[in-house]
């Protein structure tokens, strides 16, 4: 009953916001368009972007700029929900918003490792958002020129510890740093969930993130088996140290299996193999998104007055932006609409 009251407002708001998201039908229409300015003109007519973009000149915009604007819209919507949320809901949103911090940090680190001096990370889409919701000082971070500086600049922040630990490893790569951030974030979610949430919310979060972690672990295992032929110990080192429906023995067997086919057979017997018939080891990557969306939608429908609604909306919004980006690319390079729709659906 308490949930019904505390979520009634925000869930109505989210439903309203969700209705504005670009639908698959609209995407199909977009794909029919012949060039980028037309897509922008189209988007300017949709309720999601009409208000914010009304002053933009579609002919003057570059595809890169549009992508940034789309990104900005994610943060914009997040802020709107945050404003509306109560204290409990904000706890989730704050936890969730760390993924944005990690995303920016990863972008900055990519830049550092690739020495892309010509094209520094453009933080404009993040600026506004970070001022409100984050303790990271973006200006300071983007000014760093080496990993050492970046880590030093993070001193005092929660990400300092995982990153500085990696620094102690010999020849640490971008991947190691990114992995460290992800692992830190995931374990944090898993560890604090019971403290922050209770009842339905706890259940939804456990399901949503539990399946996500399992799927990510499965992806890791199969990727390393299929493409990198890594030693078992190295695979173990990369796994997210949480189990939801995957049992320890199953993971052990998967990692230790000598051939890819053996691993596939083992996978069929796991919870996920049994639950999703279409799920095969080879389409894990594509299925990950489908499954995640599926789970979230199901949860949100079953429990419309829980944190699942928030999670689900944010997921959909990001997903929308991602799909639009692909659509834009396809339009730009003149990909056949049917083929393009395939790419979009796969994601």
């Amino acid at each position, binding site marked *: 009953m308490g949930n019904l009251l505390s979520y009634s407002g925000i869930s109505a708001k989210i439903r309203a916001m969700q209705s504005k998201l670009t639908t698959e039908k609209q995407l199909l229409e977009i794909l029919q368009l012949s060039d980028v300015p037309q897509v922008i003109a189209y988007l300017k007519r949709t309720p999601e972007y009409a208000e914010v973009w009304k002053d933009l000149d579609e002919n003057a915009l570059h595809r890169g700029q549009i992508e940034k604007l789309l990104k900005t819209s994610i943060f914009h919507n997040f802020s709107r929900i945050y404003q509306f949320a109560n204290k409990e809901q904000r706890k989730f949103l704050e936890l969730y918003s760390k993924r944005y911090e990690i995303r920016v940090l990863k972008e900055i680190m990519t830049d550092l490792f690739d020495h892309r001096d010509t094209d520094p990370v453009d933080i404009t889409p993040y600026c506004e958002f970070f001022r409100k919701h984050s303790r990271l000082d973006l200006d300071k971070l983007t000014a760093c020129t080496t990993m050492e500086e970046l880590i030093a600049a993070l001193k005092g922040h929660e990400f300092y510890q995982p990153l500085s630990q990696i620094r102690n490893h010999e020849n640490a790569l971008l991947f190691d740093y990114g992995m460290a951030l992800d692992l830190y974030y995931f374990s944090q979610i898993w560890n604090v969930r019971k403290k922050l949430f209770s009842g339905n919310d706890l259940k939804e979060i456990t399901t949503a993130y539990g399946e996500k972690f399992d799927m990510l672990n499965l992806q890791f295992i199969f990727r390393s088996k299929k493409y990198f032929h890594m030693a078992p110990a190295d695979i173990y080192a990369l*796994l997210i140290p949480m189990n939801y429906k995957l049992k320890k023995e199953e993971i052990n067997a998967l990692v230790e299996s000598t051939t890819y086919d053996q691993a596939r057979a083992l996978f069929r017997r796991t919870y996920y193999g049994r639950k999703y018939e279409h799920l095969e080891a080879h389409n894990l990557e594509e299925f990950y998104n489908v499954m995640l969306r599926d789970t979230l939608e199901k949860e949100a429908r079953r429990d419309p007055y829980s944190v699942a609604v928030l999670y689900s909306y944010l997921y959909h919004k990001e997903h929308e932006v991602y799909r639009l980006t692909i659509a834009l690319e396809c339009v730009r390079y003149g990909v056949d609409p049917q083929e393009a729709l395939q790419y979009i659906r796969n994601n």
Partner: protein
Amino acid sequence: MIEKMKFLSITGPKADIDRMTETYLSRYEIHLENALAELTEDANLSPFLEINPYREALTSISSFYEQLEDPESITPQKMDTETAVSVVRRIQRESRELEEAREKLHEQHAEMIDSLKIIRPFRNLEYDVSEILKLQYIHYRFGRIEKQYFKKFEKYIYDTLDTIFLKCSEDEQYYYGVYFVPKHQAHKVHAVYSSMHFEQIFVPDCYQGTAKEAFSILDKLHKDIHAGLEQNKKDAERFLTDNRTAIVSAKAALEACSSSFDIRRLAACTKGENNTFYILCGWMTEKDALAFQEDIKDDDKIFCLMEEEQSPAKKTPPTKLHNLKLFRPFEMYIKMYGLPAYNEMDPTWFVALTYSFIFGAMFGDVGQGLLLFFGGLILYKTKHMDLAGIISCAGIFSTFFGFMYGSIFGFEEVLHAFWLKPMTAMMDVPLVGRLNAVFVIAIGFGMFLILTCMVFNIINSVRNHNTEKTWFDSNAVAGLIFYGSIALSAVLLVSGKKLPAAAVLAVMFGIPLLLMFLKEPLTNLVEKKKQIFPEQKGMFFVQSFFELFEVLLSYLSNTLSFLRIGAFAVSHAAMMEVVLMLAGATEGGSPNWIIVVLGNLFVCAMEGLIVGIQVLRLEYYEIFSRFYAGNGREFLPFKKRECQ
């Protein structure tokens, strides 16, 4: 008053210089000049070179002195030179022993700290380390592993691998431990561990017994060394405190010796292998010089030549002020501005009188004046603060003017005013209107002071044979006549008398102005120089015109500056009225005495400060700038006369 000076040249055998310094120069104050620089015409002189034998001991004792806490609080005892030197030697030796002990401890610490650091994480291991290191068929590795990896390792791998990991300790990030593996598996297992980011720590074979024992032995040693260092530090501190009197005394003794010895730097020597003589030159007050000559009459090793002050024309004698005891505190203000030159007038008495008088006029209150007087007197007598003496003098005049104004602690009704009430006494002035009488009186007094200063300037200039400053300058005779005419006219105007005829006025004002305008050519004319007018005449006239303009303006502003005397007299009364109003004394009935007392203290402190500064400003700007240069040298005796 400036003391009369005599220039003395003292000479004697070279070896006798220390005895002479010891016996005589401690009794007579002498301002030494560099003999070589003074006696340049005699080429047969060389500097008196000798290495100061006390320098080294003095530097060494000074370094100990600086380590003392609050060394000034210790009074040095009398100590002769030999004792002082031996004290320095003893202190040096003992402190070197402490130093050596400390260095030894530091060395030991550096040697053991590394092995301690290595063994510390493994201190819970209950096996003999050196035995582990000697294992043949089992491989081992000491090291650490990050906690998150260790968890994975434990969960997925440990059970299936032929290895034993002994967890010894943990910190926030790492588990520390050692793992063992059979020789034939070693290669594979090492690879697994390194995948799990196991970091090896190399353990040298230098430990005895189990790791636990080795650690406790080393840990104890470590603590012992630290205790030793601590003890050493305490010993050093105690050593310093035990010897502090000795250090201070030895330093004082050596400093005295060293500075007496340094007299050689100012001395000159006659040339030659044998029978060389030293020469010292310097200034003594006339009184001292005569007494000194009388004193050395029977000493056949010292010859002294006394000269009149003028003869070494290059250098003016140093200035030593000698004033009445009452005026002496005011020397502080003179020294702040600059000492008078030897042949200049000493303005101390003038400052003392005008300062106290003006202060009193601005701060007229019997009660507060007496407070200042007694407060200042007590501080002057106990702490010997010159400023307190000045305040005390000013307090007397404050009291005097308090009676004049009829004011005591701000109560205007209690006393009868002998003269006037600054707040209420009014006066009619032609052209201006009705004004507080004190303002008009202040301006009049200011004019009188300015005229006096001009007279002083003329006297000083006559003494210096400075024609321009005697006759044509704005503070010279021309200025005196011009300003005097203004003053006279003003007095006539105010008192309602008739002014002199226009022709007379024109002469009175015109001629001095013309003189001032042409001061440079006129000076040249009087001094019989060849060129009377400067080359660029146009430039000269423009410049002189503006200078004259500036002179007139400054007469006006300087005169008005004295208004502040009256203004502060009024403001003092006004402020006290506010205090009494706050205390509720104006409405009749009994006032709030706490507010009266606090208000009085506040006004006394604030007004005292402001008035003190304002009067000083008047002294420096309006008075000193007219006649006083203040570019004298201070008389610095080589040795202060020892107090008997």
